């Protein structure tokens, strides 16, 4: 009996060590998120070593990621790699408990992606703004184009970007 108890204790020690080795070095990785990745909530670095006492609020996480250019994309890829080194984060990612969404600059990027509809002269009315919104376009007004007050309100309501050339 005593040998089996000893054996059990040894196995428990080994398991504890192995788990500590697996979790320990990876734990600090997410606490230092990739530089320049804004609005990233602090990953539960301290929770990883704490014997599976994950608070229920951390079960599902959505990280805001700002991707405006190639550098941002590169930073995000590196951040993702760092997250993947942690087994818990890896499982969360695979199971869909850790998700990402585009933050902040998404609207600006979207407005730059929209094809431009150019109006050089005459009145820019509410009807034209609505048509641009339905077509998913942004409006570029020439020097002699005049935006009516109602059209300006409509553009703001529908989120149609309007650029005026001077």
């Amino acid at each position: 009996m005593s040998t089996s108890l000893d054996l059990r204790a040894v196995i428990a020690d080994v398991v504890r060590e192995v788990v500590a080795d697996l979790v320990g070095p990876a734990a600090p990785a997410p606490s230092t998120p990739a530089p320049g990745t804004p609005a990233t909530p602090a990953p539960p670095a301290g929770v990883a070593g704490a014997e599976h006492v994950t608070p229920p609020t951390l079960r599902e996480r959505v990280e805001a990621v700002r991707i405006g250019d190639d550098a941002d994309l590169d930073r995000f890829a590196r951040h993702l790699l760092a997250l993947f080194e942690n087994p818990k984060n890896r499982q969360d990612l695979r199971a869909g408990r850790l998700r990402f969404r585009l933050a902040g600059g998404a609207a600006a990027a979207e407005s730059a992606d929209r094809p431009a509809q150019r109006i050089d002269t005459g009145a820019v009315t509410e009807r034209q703004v609505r048509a641009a919104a339905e077509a998913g376009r942004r409006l570029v007004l020439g020097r002699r184009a005049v935006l009516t007050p109602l059209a300006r309100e409509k553009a703001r309501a529908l989120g149609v970007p309007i650029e005026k050339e001077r």
Partner: protein
Amino acid sequence: MSSTAIGMIETKGFVAALAAADAMVKAANVTITDRQEVGDGLVAVVIAGEVGAVKAATEAGAETASQVGELVSVHVIPRPHAELGNHFDTSAT
């Protein structure tokens, strides 16, 4: 007429201004309060009425003016200050 707004349309050329003025009074319940000719062919028409009516009227007037002639500017002041009436003929107090 407590919530009186004023709307202005300026065109280059008399005909466009006249067409715009006609379109404005037909489009909504507004009245023409002033017509200004500042020279160089610029004619401005000022209307007054409820805010929504003035906005709708200027919308119609601007479209007509740009079809007939050259539209220079459109503007709506939803609640003009009383002081304006002392120096401009807005008739919207």
